[in-house]
């Protein structure tokens, strides 16, 4: 319990740090960049302009501490200003999230399964062909920047073979509905981006899983499992893998930040209109409030996942449950 309290404290501090970074950026922005931001917003709506003024500390009769506190208060109540189009930032993010959630959520689960199983098997059959080929291959693949995988896939499957589309999340003329053809359209558009993400994420996971398994396998209780005459499968999963995965869960959640970053690049590459693409367009539009909101969003997402991983670890590991 105390551990979770400490973690909770860390999360709050991280959130505070993210908010502070957000607050500091407009204050310390070089002049010409600031001008570009303000220019973008000039003709939108008065509320947006006013919110920006507050951020930059212009035309406002407050000292910096008061502004800081006000910024905090605003954030806590969910008012993050307006985008360059005049839409409330929170609203914009929330309406875009589902697409990214689907893409990243599904790929992460798939990558987790593939990576875990591959890591377990290659450690179990050490010295076999799987162990010789798979980890180095996946390791290399995971260190290759994700957009390169994306580029290759686009070239191969979309352009050369023309099997799959490589832009947007559904065909331009289609209207969203729950029909099968639309769903299939969505899936088709998501395949290449998803595949790129899976390849990179699974690669990350395989390596650390395999190393964990190798260490766990040398433990006495695994030998004892064998000695008891349990089947190989049983020992591998119930005694080795189960104990090997646990310390990795939190680490994996921590790497989610990296995965989300990769998703940004992939969404840009494939023009997939998720949160990452939103971040990109916000950058080109000089849309500061949206960027700040998105940064906060990403930080929160990682924190939630790490917290979840911690909770799951605590729930599963009997050593953390005291009678």
């Amino acid at each position, binding site marked *: 319990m105390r551990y979770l309290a400490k973690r909770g404290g860390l999360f709050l501090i991280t959130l505070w740090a993210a908010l502070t970074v957000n607050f500091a950026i407009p204050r310390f922005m070089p002049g010409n960049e600031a001008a570009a931001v303000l220019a973008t917003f000039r003709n939108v709506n008065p509320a947006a302009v006013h919110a920006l003024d507050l951020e930059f500390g212009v035309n406002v009769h407050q000292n910096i501490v008061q502004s800081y506190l006000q910024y905090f208060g605003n954030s806590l109540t969910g008012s993050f200003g307006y985008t360059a189009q005049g839409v409330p930032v929170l609203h914009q993010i929330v309406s875009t999230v589902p697409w990214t959630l689907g893409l990243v959520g599904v790929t992460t689960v798939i990558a987790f399964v593939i990576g875990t199983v591959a890591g377990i098997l290659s450690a179990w059959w*050490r*010295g076999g062909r799987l162990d010789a080929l798979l980890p180095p291959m996946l390791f290399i693949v995971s260190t290759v920047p994700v957009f390169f995988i994306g580029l290759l896939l686009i070239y191969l499957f979309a352009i050369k073979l023309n099997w799959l589309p490589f832009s947007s999340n559904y065909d331009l003329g289609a209207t969203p509905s729950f029909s099968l053809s639309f769903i299939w359209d969505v899936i088709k558009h998501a395949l290449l981006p998803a595949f790129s993400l899976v390849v990179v994420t699974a690669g990350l996971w395989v390596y650390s899983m395999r190393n964990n398994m190798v260490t766990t*396998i*040398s*433990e*006495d*209780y695994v*030998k*004892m*499992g*064998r*000695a*008891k*005459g*349990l*089947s*190989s499968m*049983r020992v591998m999963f*119930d*005694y080795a893998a*189960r*104990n090997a995965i*646990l310390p990795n869960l939190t680490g994996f959640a921590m790497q989610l930040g990296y995965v989300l970053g990769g998703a940004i690049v992939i969404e840009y590459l494939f023009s997939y209109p998720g949160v990452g693409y939103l971040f990109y367009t916000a950058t080109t539009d000089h849309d500061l409030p949206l960027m700040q909101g998105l940064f906060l969003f990403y930080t929160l997402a990682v924190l939630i996942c790490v917290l979840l991983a911690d909770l799951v670890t605590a729930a*599963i*590991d*009997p*050593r953390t449950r005291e*009678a």
Partner: protein
Amino acid sequence: MPDPLLEVDGLTIEYLTDAADVRAVEDVSFSVGAGEFVGVVGESGCGKSTMLFGVAQLLSPPGEVTAGRVIFRGQDMVKLSAGELRHMRWRDYSVVMQSAMNALNPMKSIAAQFKDALQAHEKLSSAEIHERSARVLEMVGIDPAHLKSFPHQLSGGMRQRAMIAMALLFTPQLVMMDEPTSALDVVAQRSLMSKIRELQATLGFAVIFVTHDMHVVSRYCDRVLVMYAGQVVESAATENIFERPMHPYSRGLIDAFPTVTGPRRELVGIPGSPPDLAEPMSGCRFQPRCPVAMPVCAEVEPELYAVDSSEVRCLLYTDVDRLERRADG
């Protein structure tokens, strides 16, 4: 003489690595009769644990049995397939390891660990499983309420007993123990040892007991194997080893352990250290440290020579002249 329960013949175990092949156990032969309590002693690194796990067919890569036979219940275990071995495991022989904290799965309750052993070999109802588990726990003096506990919730002594209880789930004929008392304090050790002896008397299983503690050996073992540098250097009944140790190394071991009773005498250690098993060796492996080494010991490797009911690997007990003549000619 009835057939021995277990017969180990010429067992050789090597670690095959990219760098070098290390022969951890060389040409070990011994047998264990039904209900016998056999101790295996030697200093760290002499190969006794490796030998034990080799006999139990529990070696991990890169360790492998490269020669010899292990005849148990009429079959050579080295030649058996994994499936056939699995059949025998735990039912006919079981294993107790040094540290229960490491040997018991930290994520499973005691009951769960007993259960998977039981279910691996027999079809039992959950009532039967519970009953059997409770019974073995009672046998070692643990309240069956602890079945629900996890290993980290038990004390060190209790964990060790639980491990022994687990080993007796199928009342096997042979239990192999690798230093089961080393992780305990002296009082707990004594308590555990007498419990083991008591169970052995009741259930009649044979024990191979690997240890470096000569006291335990002197009190509980029927026979003793002394190992050095991967080989058996002396094999004898307990009284013989302690009263008339034959091999200079055994003598050194016995001399190094004080007794509470008996005359005060100067403790003598064995100077030097065991040889590096990765390096090639010639002659007797103990020769560099042996207080009574003869020149021929550096050249001729002694075999296990029978002396009365014991065996000893020392040139003192053979016709050296005959050997020298053979070497020259």
